[in-house]
């Protein structure tokens, strides 16, 4: 009995809380950095890159730890490409960065399609598909212990910068005239958010909607000041994914992939939140 709790249930619970908190925090940070409440942590391609990494590792028959390592590294690499592209074009505007994210995500998505196409349809393809839908069933203490420091440090850095990220909402020009080193602040925040998302994806596979939904629920409760919004998002994000994972285990005799539930529950909730807040899309 003790083993069931310590080896299976507890790591899974911890992983769900960590992943939910990380995705929600990186989502709310991205929304602050890009001054847009409808941005999700996937904006710069981290999830798509991670998907390619995981699929490649599955095709190479690497063990679980190999899949996690590949997902993490490819996720980070995708964001690096996204950030490098505007520099090559000598246009470092936010819009260029977002476009570059679209390009890299699109390319990664095609590569993922190719990998799925050449995968063995009986063994490899189902693994890839299940990984892409997210699950906590394979989580072990070892991966939590490896990733926790990364998440903790990135999370603390973002929390410390949360008031400065408020200033970015004034626009780059004004933020700079107020003494904020805009490009440095944005770089640090993007790096931390990317590390958080990549770590989360590592633990659970890709999980959709958390990074968009949770910040909006937090905004509805706490207002739009990042000083309140960041801690609230962490708490709600963690509890939300713990709840979803419990549902995923118990709703039917076989386990349901997490992304299916976050989509089916999350999207309608998101629609209601948007309606209630009457978000003005500019």
């Amino acid at each position, binding site marked *: 009995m003790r083993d069931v709790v310590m080896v299976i249930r507890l790591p899974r619970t911890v992983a769900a809380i960590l992943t939910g908190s990380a995705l929600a925090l990186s989502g709310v940070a991205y929304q602050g950095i890009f001054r847009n409440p409808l941005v999700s942590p996937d904006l710069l391609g981290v999830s798509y890159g991670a998907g390619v990494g995981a699929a490649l590792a599955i095709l190479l028959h690497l063990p679980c730890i190999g899949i996690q390592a590949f997902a993490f590294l490819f996720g980070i690499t995708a964001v690096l490409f996204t950030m490098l592209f505007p520099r090559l074009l000598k246009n470092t505007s936010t819009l260029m960065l977002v476009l570059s994210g679209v390009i890299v995500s699109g390319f990664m998505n095609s590569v993922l399609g190719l990998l799925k196409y050449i995968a063995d349809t009986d063994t490899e393809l189902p693994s890839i598909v299940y990984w892409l839908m997210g699950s906590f069933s394979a989580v072990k203490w070892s991966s939590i212990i490896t990733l926790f420091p990364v998440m903790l440090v990135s999370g603390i850095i973002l929390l410390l910068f949360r008031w400065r990220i*408020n200033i970015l*909402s004034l*626009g780059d020009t004004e933020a700079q005239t*107020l*003494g*904020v080193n805009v490009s440095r602040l944005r770089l640090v925040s993007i790096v931390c958010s990317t590390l958080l998302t990549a770590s989360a994806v590592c633990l659970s596979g890709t999980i959709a909607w958390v990074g968009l939904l949770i910040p909006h629920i937090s905004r509805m409760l706490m207002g739009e000041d990042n000083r309140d919004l960041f801690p609230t998002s962490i708490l709600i994000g963690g509890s939300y994914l713990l709840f979803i994972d419990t549902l995923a285990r118990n709703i039917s005799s076989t386990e349901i992939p997490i992304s299916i539930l976050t989509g089916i529950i999350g999207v309608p909730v998101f629609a209601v939140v948007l309606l209630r807040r009457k978000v003005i899309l500019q």
Partner: protein
Amino acid sequence: MTKTAVLAVSGLTFSYTNNTPVLCDVTLSVCTGEILTVLGPNGSGKSTLLGCIVNLLHFNKGEIAINGKNLKSYSVSQLSREIAYVPQVHSLGFRYSVRDYVVMGRTPYIGALRSPKKEDYSKADETISRMNISHLSKKPFNELSGGERQQVQIARALVQDAKLIILDEPTNHLDYGNQLKILQIIQELADKGYAVMLTTHMPDHVILLDGYTGILHPDGHMITGLTRSVITENNLGELYSTDLRIVFVEELGRDVCVAGTIRTPTVNKFFSNLSKEQEE
């Protein structure tokens, strides 16, 4: 006694990507307690000039000195303690209260990893009440009218504790009453010892503010001098290519700048062409 210039620009030349210069050999200075108003038609480079002064744009030639020190020797954070910039009236992507917006002006004095403390908030509150906008303090910035927003933006610039305040078309998009209210505030700032530089489209505002004027021509050249000597019918008529009159109004005891007539040959021609087209 010569006053020290807070802002001194000499021989400033700027062009976007190898084209003809937007600013050509611009020289100006603003001392404490003075107002310099820059007048120029659309696209003449007024915003570009301000962009160079707040170090957002990198100019090709010339020098800008703030308190006698080269602009390039200031870090981003140091410069924000010397120059406060008031942008054109705009709205925010997120809902912040007026109080939270004004306290953002304290950023230069708050460490990168910190949030504003009690002292910062009391400074903001003090400025808000001094400007008689305490009733707005808790309202979301985005729900204010244009005139209210402009006052709040000026309050934010004031808590920045900078000697030089730069305003980009502060009377734009405001109704007539609010335009005059903002001008009054600007005059008070100068009287309190701030060095103030602003851009405007209204020659009559320039006359009301008195002080110094810079006329920026579309070719990038600028004439500066005392408003009385620069604002002449000749200069303005040439600048806007319309019939402008400067008339002394005895009741007011000042010059006013008004349009002579709008029945110019160009306007008539426009309509005659239009009616011809309709006939065809």
